[in-house]
């Protein structure tokens, strides 16, 4: 198994890329809203993504089992 340092060294750049893709998605959405003059009628997917990011930003999440952020997000995404 990987050490804690190896986990960061191995996956940091891929996580960076994935976060940039999410940032670009939010920018793309805002640009479309500005271009169209209106937001999507149903923004629930956007809201869920923001809630998921907020969940990930919490360094000490509760009450999900320790470390299992993935299950928490899967349950969150199951709302729609």
């Amino acid at each position, binding site marked *: 198994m990987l050490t804690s340092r190896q986990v960061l060294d191995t996956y940091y*750049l891929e996580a960076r*890329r994935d976060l*940039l*893709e999410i940032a*670009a998605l939010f920018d*793309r959405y805002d*640009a479309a809203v500005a271009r169209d003059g209106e937001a999507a009628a149903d923004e629930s997917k956007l809201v869920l993504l923001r809630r998921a990011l907020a969940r990930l930003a919490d360094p000490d999440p509760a009450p999900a089992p320790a470390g299992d952020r993935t299950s928490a997000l899967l349950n969150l995404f199951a709302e729609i």
Partner: protein
Amino acid sequence: MQIIQPHYHAIARTAQDYERMAMSGVAAVCEPAFWAGFDRRYPETFLDYFSQIADFEPTRAAQYGIRHYCWVAVNPKEAENPELTRDVLRAMPEFLEKPTCLGVGETGLHKSTRNEINSLQAHVELAMTHGQLVLIHTPHLSDKAHGTKTVLEVLAGLDIDRGRVWIDHVEEHTVKSVLDAGYWAGMTLYPVTKCTPRRAADILEKYGTERLLVNSSADWGPSDPFTLQECILEYRRRGHSLQEAVEVFHNNPCRFLGQNPKWDIAPIRIEAEECEPS
């Protein structure tokens, strides 16, 4: 669709790349001189490398109907060796005369050290003296914003034609400053460490297509020449027309590179034939 791959390190790739690129519509690739993964010790090693990309690689590409062009330079990493850089620069004019050499590149910055800056200045001055185009590498990852700013500061102090300079590897936080200063800007698509096809399509939509180039680089590291085709697909699926895609992925490279008379591939216009009713 006809595609130009403006930045591609063929010597690090297999013939299968050429075959697949040919099957996907790539008409030409351009190969800047770059870092081999280790620091070369002798100027002569560079000269053999320049011969490889100027003389041999075009024959390999030609087997697949692809035109191959090159650029010559000491890359920023090896510019840390000033003596080697000076000797290579002295020999470079011979290679600038080669029939497929388009200019000086990729020079630029990696860690933005004094040696790198001196090398960048010397490369640009050599290019201007010999009437050459210039391709400039900007740093990766956390050094990019600072390095790009430094590149622009260095260039501002030189007597250059900005329309003949292409600053590569721009991303969202650097593209505007490059375009605003009057240079061509290149987006390099990598699977992980640089721009991605979707983000490049976003940049094209935000800044328009003028003076923007898209390439996939593709070298000996984790890279994929077909990120360029992924970007074309992403651009087209957002509703941009075939002609708009041709403008970005074929005609823009032709417009920039065509400033060197050795480049003889012209921009193309898609026209539909009128069908007569049977």
